[in-house]
């Protein structure tokens, strides 16, 4: 999932596209999935399904350039938040990121890297991330109990109504622990260690939904909302403030929270620490909430990043939540530069995800404020696929503008806002940019303001010193007049 990989594959994707366009032929070639291996990862916050699809271009004389894949048909009633396709080349050494586009509500037309001649086959790796579907089972536990979670109605016998025939398939579930309370049995299915395997099933297997209930030692944390306020100052650094609302979605304690219990055996699913990673140039970090500094936090300045481990004011017991603000400053150089696309513009590019990593983000809002009086401001997510753009099929992406008053602002500085929902840690990292045109003369705004203030004060002082005998002045004149 590395950023590098995304970048490197862009060229290949384009090549693939042109190729696909070349060999395009009207007649749709029929495709068969000879083998489907799905690996469902339930250890993380969000459900990750990695499937190896071995397709074969069987009957039909024409080449196969693309095929339609309907993950939402295969995984019933789950919310897809990310998907990508890679195709192994013959050597099987490195993979090609495949281009796809949405087709019909919940299917995608995936175009292969190269056309498949009749009879030939290849393996496409689909990688799908679904919003968390884990529910605590039971909904309430005692503090001494283990935290059991379950996933329900998962289709282990995938049947794609669209156009695919799946000849044989296996579905593997990877669980966070080997303590499995319950799993629906569909022969042949077996539990070994932290793994539940369903299949292999033939083409004639009846579709069947399964439930799994298993222990989850880690806390079910989620960032229900985070607002990132990025302020570019024409003098000082780039200032970042992240307002978090974190909560633990685990099963509530029916018997309340006991400090003794917690001291005796701190259950691992009680989150007592949050770690944040910010770029290594970051400085003057702080962590506050409404009541002031959160004193118990320390930062490690590493080679590639600063890592802050913060202890919330109180341990995040399942069902509890907390709000706090994490802030840091970044030097301009390295983040703010000339915009390559728009001459004469400055461009700030930052990572879009907040500093707390590895936790599902329900709602992310980015407000990037650029210096006052800067013109034609643009901003948004830098995305390689349909994701995070306006035509993101799986989430709402709202972009807007606002103004914000900050140090020594007269009219307020322009702000670009971007709102995203359902961002999981498994998603390839995503960057945000804002680009604006700024007249350097404006840099002297602050200075001139100071001067003005000084003048005003001076004038006021002189007026005051004079005002003493203006008290009598007019009256005495009047007297003289009379």
């Amino acid at each position: 999932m590395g950023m590098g990989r995304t970048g490197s594959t862009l060229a290949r994707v384009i090549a693939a596209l042109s190729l696909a366009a070349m060999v395009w032929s009207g007649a749709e070639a029929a495709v068969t999935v000879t083998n489907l291996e799905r690996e469902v990862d339930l250890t993380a916050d969000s459900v990750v399904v990695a499937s190896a699809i071995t397709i074969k271009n069987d009957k039909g004389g024409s080449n196969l350039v693309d095929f339609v894949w309907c993950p939402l048909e295969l995984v019933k009633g789950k919310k897809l938040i990310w998907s990508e396709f890679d195709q192994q080349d013959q050597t099987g050494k490195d993979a090609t990121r495949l281009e796809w586009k949405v087709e019909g509500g919940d299917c995608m037309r995936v175009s292969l890297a190269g056309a498949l001649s009749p009879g030939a086959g290849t393996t496409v790796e689909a990688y799908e991330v679904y919003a968390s579907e884990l529910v605590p089972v039971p909904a309430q536990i005692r503090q001494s109990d283990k935290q059991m979670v379950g996933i329900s109605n998962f289709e282990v016998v995938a049947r794609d109504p669209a156009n695919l025939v799946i000849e044989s398939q296996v579905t593997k579930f990877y669980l966070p622990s080997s303590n499995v309370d319950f799993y629906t049995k569909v022969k042949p299915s077996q539990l070994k260690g932290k793994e539940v395997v369903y299949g292999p099933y033939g083409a004639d297997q009846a579709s069947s939904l399964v439930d799994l209930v298993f222990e989850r030692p880690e806390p079910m944390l989620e960032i229900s909302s985070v607002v990132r306020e990025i302020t570019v100052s024409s003098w000082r650094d780039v200032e970042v403030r992240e307002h978090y609302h974190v909560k633990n979605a685990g099963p509530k304690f029916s018997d309340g929270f006991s400090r003794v219990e917690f001291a005796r055996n701190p259950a691992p699913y009680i989150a007592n620490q949050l770690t944040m990673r910010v770029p290594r140039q970051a400085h003057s970090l702080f962590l506050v909430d409404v009541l002031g500094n959160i004193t118990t936090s320390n930062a490690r300045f590493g080679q590639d990043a600063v890592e802050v481990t913060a202890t919330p004011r109180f341990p995040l017991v399942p069902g509890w939540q907390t709000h706090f603000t994490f802030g840091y400053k970044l030097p301009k150089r390295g983040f703010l530069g000339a915009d390559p696309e728009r001459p004469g513009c400055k461009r700030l590019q930052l990572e879009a995800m907040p500093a707390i990593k590895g936790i599902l983000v329900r709602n992310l809002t980015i407000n990037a404020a650029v210096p006052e009086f800067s013109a034609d401001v643009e901003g948004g997510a830098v995305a390689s696929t349909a994701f995070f753009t306006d035509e993101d099929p799986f989430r709402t992406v709202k972009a807007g503008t606002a103004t914000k008053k900050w140090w020594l602002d007269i009219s307020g500085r322009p702000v670009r806002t971007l709102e995203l929902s359902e961002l999981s840690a498994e998603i390839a990292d995503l960057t945000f940019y804002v680009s604006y045109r700024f007249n350097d003369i404006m840099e002297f705004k602050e200075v001139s303001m100071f001067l003005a203030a000084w003048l005003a004060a001076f004038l006021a002082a002189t007026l005051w010193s004079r005002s003493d005998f203006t008290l009598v002045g007019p009256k005495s004149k009047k007297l003289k007049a009379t």
Partner: protein
Amino acid sequence: MAGGKGKSSSGGRDHPVRAEPQHGSSKTSNQEKAQVTGNESQSGIASTIETVSLVLIAAVAFAIRLFSIVKYESVIHEFDPYFNYRVTQLASEKGVDAFWNFFDDRTWYPLGRVVGGTIYPGLTLTATWIHWFLKAALKLHPVEVKDVCVMIGPLFSSFTAISTYLMVRQIKGRGAGLLAASFVATIPSYISRSVAGSYDNESVAIFALTNTFYLYLKSIDTGSMFWGVAASLSYFYMVSSWGGYTFIINLIPIHALALLIIDKFNWKLYTGYSMFIVNGTVLAMVLPVIGFNAVETSEHFSGFFVLALMNGVALVKYLKRTLTREAYKKAFRLFVTTSVAVMGVVSLAVITFAMTSPTLRWSGRSLSLLDPTYASKYIPIIASVSEHQAPSWSSFVNDLRLAIILMASGIVSCFRPLTAGSLFLVIWGVLSVYFSAVMVRLMLVLAPAACCLAGIAMSDLLEVLCRSYHLAQPKPEDAGRKEDGQARRRGRRRNSGSSQQRGTIPRPLALLGISGAIFALSYHLFHCSFLGGEGYSSPSIILQSRTRDGGVYIFDDYREGYSWLRENTDYDAKVASWWDYGYQTTAMADRTVLVDNNTWNNTHIATVGRAMASPEESAWKQFRALDVDYVFVIFGGLVGYSSDDINKFLWMVRIGGGVYGDIKERDYIGEGYYRIDEKASPVMLNTLMYKLSYYRFAETVGRDGQDRVRNTKFGNPDVKLTYFREAFTSKHWMIRIYEVLEEPLLEQAH
């Protein structure tokens, strides 16, 4: 935010360090001033030095109060300020109009509190307007209300320094003024109430106090109505910011009376005084919190009495001037008889009027001032507040240090010569000594008086020394002295002259004396900054303890508990606790409370005290009746935090018992005195307070473990709770929050 904080605080750190030598220098310049005032009327250079040193003093006054920010963080400190802070926020968000009509439905549930009519608005409005100014005029948008509130204390103490300087200069010349200012800037007992973050009424009130006195003295000195108006305005500010204004409204008449008695009456006094009383009273009545009290309660009567008297005197004098001698004699006799009669009638009326209320129309607090034993006898709530106790002598020495020593000699030097101003200082000093001896809180009123007197004493001392130093030179020292009509100047000339004749101490001794004085001053300064840094700048919500390796260990339990309440309880949840924590709960946890630090309703507080003192089941019933969802107690037993609820519990019992008969103090006393160990009374061990405090405590410290506050074993190690459920306990067990359980869904048969 904290980035900014970091900056400002680091600035704060090196500021005092940087400021102290300058302060020393300002000291030396002070001596020059002392002799300048002695020798010649001000020259340009002198006045510049004067201004510079005054500015420096103000800077020091500001800087010396920033330790709390440096050592902890920019946070509001005590209990009361949290309410002020909350109201300030409201005022700055919703506007001043909303502030006046603020009906607070989140405190004193279910009674609610009319805040607009029961609060002294001075402090909060000041902060609101400053904040507004910073935002609107200076364009400092990110500045938060909190920062302003935190900084109010230091800011106004530097103002106090300036106004003190002005006042003492009015009385005793520049040197004394500067010295007094430098004393007041660094006097510990004032620092303790005005460190950064102690956002309390007193922090602005003391400024208003000194300022009022300055303007009043100026007005009776110049006899100008303008200054009279100014004085009454500043008195208005005082009234609007602190209940202690009654001190002024009594002190000034007493002073005026004294002046009448020693026959120092003149038209200036008349002008200044009458202007002050009339305008001041009307202004005070404008405030909703004072309202008709300004003419109805006995605190204010003395003013009118003296006013009447003064008019009489004025009339007599006038007659004396206009009438011929013998006619005047007759008239005088006549006048005296009639006026005596009238006076008798009036005073009779007043007394009957006063009799109409049981407390003779004295408010409880001022009664407890006149009769120190009153509160403990009748009003346990007032008595229960720690700052209403009488102070220990050590605290006098500690808090006033050099000032208290110099004060006496200051009084002496005030008598030579006795001007209106110096007389004022004397009366102020004496009265405030008495009051502060009754109520430790009023040490605050003593502090400025002591400083002024000390300043005067020190300046006289230095003056004598310097003069004797100068006498050695051949140059006759009173060359530049010009005639000036002011009584003050004349007085000064006389005493300087006399001191000159009274043979001066030899030069080396003078030098020695000067250096000694300098040493004393700098030692005083050092001590004060030490106290300011160590003693008085530790917030009560963040506690600190030294670890063995010299590091600091922070107990942040209060905020832990409050933030838990804020995050994880329903917004409309009702939280019950002892009243000390009411303001903090409403401000920090933002939850509805039953009682808070504005102890206006004894009964309601007694209800909570009674519930805390009842056995679990009946307590549960009482709390359910009040819709209470959560109860929390402060418990220091684990870490030895001594001001916890168990130690306050006896007050709860007393206050509860004061209203409800079923609570009897003696039931809670085990074997002679109040205790919680095995010998404690069964009733005590059965109270809700005990159970909530020690619930599952044995599991941490062991069944025969010790309570680290009481240093005893605790009576009942295994506490069971059936109607309350532990909802949260902070890291060091200091704040323990319990949920009041619902009624059971089913009623079992037995």
